[in-house]
């Protein structure tokens, strides 16, 4: 492993392998040339740590994100919707697995990452701390939350770190499928009975602002943006992506005959963008700090699954041990 790692730097720089400045310059010029960084390549420790943080948060979001929608599997209103929802939540678990694997290429184990999540030291997307009281929430999550996620994730398909970029390509394909399904649920509701339409509007009212918050704080206050853009982990700023999302989503809401819950929202001819009202950053901070409506429940649910599953995981390990011993004996 070690020699391979050095080899990948090229023989000419072996003698300067301890020169951190040179390594850093080589790394940055590789990034600037849009080459991919791979697991065995040298990388700045801060780059490695940033990626571990970002990829694991992303993985945790997929896993915690199974809960708000999973909440409706047993109550989905038709068998077709139930099947689609199970498949979707299953996809999310699969995305979590891709992402944990991508994070593991950076030298941390999935077990460690999950410990961080359960201890509350690792974050996951703020959006999953909101409840899903009605069936329409399943539609709104697909349409808005997955829509925002795609907006965030498509640029990551070109992220400088190869394993993350490749995971994102696979994930984005499934996400766009989920997003269309969510929109279709909303459309069915919006064209349904008065009660269904009210349900759809209520879900839009509750998910609109939290979805905008998914893009993170304003550029002026975002701590990581500048460095992440230099490293090409990020390709667009939070505000750029948020604006893009709003520009695409508002006409979709109009098409559905639903009203975006923002009295200040208006189309601006000059910039060719929608201008939106102020985001409640206090709420965003509160949710991130653990004080959203469901933070406690989400973590407790994950912890319970982990604790109550411990005997199962231990049994699998014990059995594998026994099998190994039997195989050795037989050989």
């Amino acid at each position, binding site marked *: 492993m070690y020699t391979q790692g050095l080899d990948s730097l090229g023989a000419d720089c072996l003698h300067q392998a301890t020169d951190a400045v040179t390594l850093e310059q080589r790394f940055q010029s590789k990034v600037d040339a849009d080459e991919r960084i791979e697991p065995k390549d040298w990388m700045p420790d801060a780059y490695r740590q940033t990626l571990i943080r970002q990829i694991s948060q992303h993985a945790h979001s997929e896993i915690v994100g199974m809960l708000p929608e999973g909440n409706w599997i*047993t*109550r989905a*209103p038709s*068998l077709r919707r139930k099947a689609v929802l199970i498949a979707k939540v299953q996809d999310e*678990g699969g995305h979590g697995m891709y992402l944990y694997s991508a994070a593991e290429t950076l030298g941390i184990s999935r077990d460690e990452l999950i410990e961080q999540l359960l201890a509350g030291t690792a974050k996951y997307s703020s959006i999953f701390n909101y409840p899903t009281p009605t069936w329409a929430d399943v539609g709104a999550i697909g349409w808005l939350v997955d829509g925002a996620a795609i907006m965030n994730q498509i640029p990551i398909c070109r992220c400088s770190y190869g394993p993350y970029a490749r995971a994102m390509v696979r994930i984005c394909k499934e996400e766009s499928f989920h997003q269309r399904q969510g929109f279709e649920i909303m459309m069915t509701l919006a064209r349904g009975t008065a009660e*269904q339409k009210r349900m759809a509007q209520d879900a839009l009212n509750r998910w609109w602002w939290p979805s905008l918050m998914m893009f993170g704080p304003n550029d002026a206050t975002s701590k990581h943006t500048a460095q992440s853009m230099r490293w090409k982990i990020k390709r667009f700023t939070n505000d750029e992506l948020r604006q893009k999302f709003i520009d695409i989503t508002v006409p979709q809401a109009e098409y559905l005959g639903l009203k975006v819950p923002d009295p200040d929202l208006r189309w601006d001819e000059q910039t060719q963008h929608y201008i939106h009202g102020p985001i409640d950053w206090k709420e965003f901070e509160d949710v991130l700090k653990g004080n959203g409506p469901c933070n406690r429940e989400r973590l407790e649910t994950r912890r319970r699954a982990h604790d109550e599953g411990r005997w199962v995981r231990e049994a699998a390990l014990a059995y594998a041990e026994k099998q190994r011993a039997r195989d050795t004996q037989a050989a």
Partner: protein
Amino acid sequence: MSASPAIVTHSASAELRFRYATYLGDTSLILAQRLGEWVGHAPALEEDLALANIALDLLGQARYLLSYAGEIEGKGRSEDDLAFLRDPSDFSNLALVEQPNVDFGHTIVRQFLLDAWQLELFEKLQASSEPRFAELAAKALKETRYHYRFSAGWVVRLGDGTEESHNRVQAGLDALWRFTSEMFAPGAADEEAAAAGLGPDPASLRAAWLANVEQVLQTATLKRPADVPFRWFGKRHQHTDHLSHLLAEMQFMQRTYPGAQW
């Protein structure tokens, strides 16, 4: 069976085919519903995915069978009408599949006992005189082989794992064994279906099922519980208390908003 030679060639009335389809469809549907409760709560991510996968397969079987039942009944009832607008006493699923998840051990035992049964059932159902049942059986058999590999694999892992896992899976087996007699005793639909060439005689599935189950239990170092004499059969519409709770949850949207499209 019939005294009248005129109806011997195909004596399976639409009414019988309806009852047989709902018996098989309800069994798959209710188990899918139970597995759906696990999604997001399993002991490891891989198990979340696997349980969701099995739930989806079973739900697919249920949709096929209930759609067919609705068609053959001819009253315009859809798969959703049959799933969401029938009362507990109209359901004819095996009582085994309505039993609660309890823990991963119980869930795996329930799955294993059912998978081993579906293996035999679908194998034989491929020869059904009704092409729609034969077609379903051929497709479902492939899925069931996968389910069986998963559940039997876990029965062995848990049984021959730690002391705790052994005790838990044995407890699941002890609790659920009494529901297995129903699989092989005559209900109403399956017995008549066998006479009409629609499906296998339920009793004919027992020997192979038991041989399979006993072999896995032995590998898992588990003890086969004694058969009990008292019988309470879901397929004769005698359900345990669990079914009405399950249906209250499953059906509430359709019951609350009648006639809406989703």
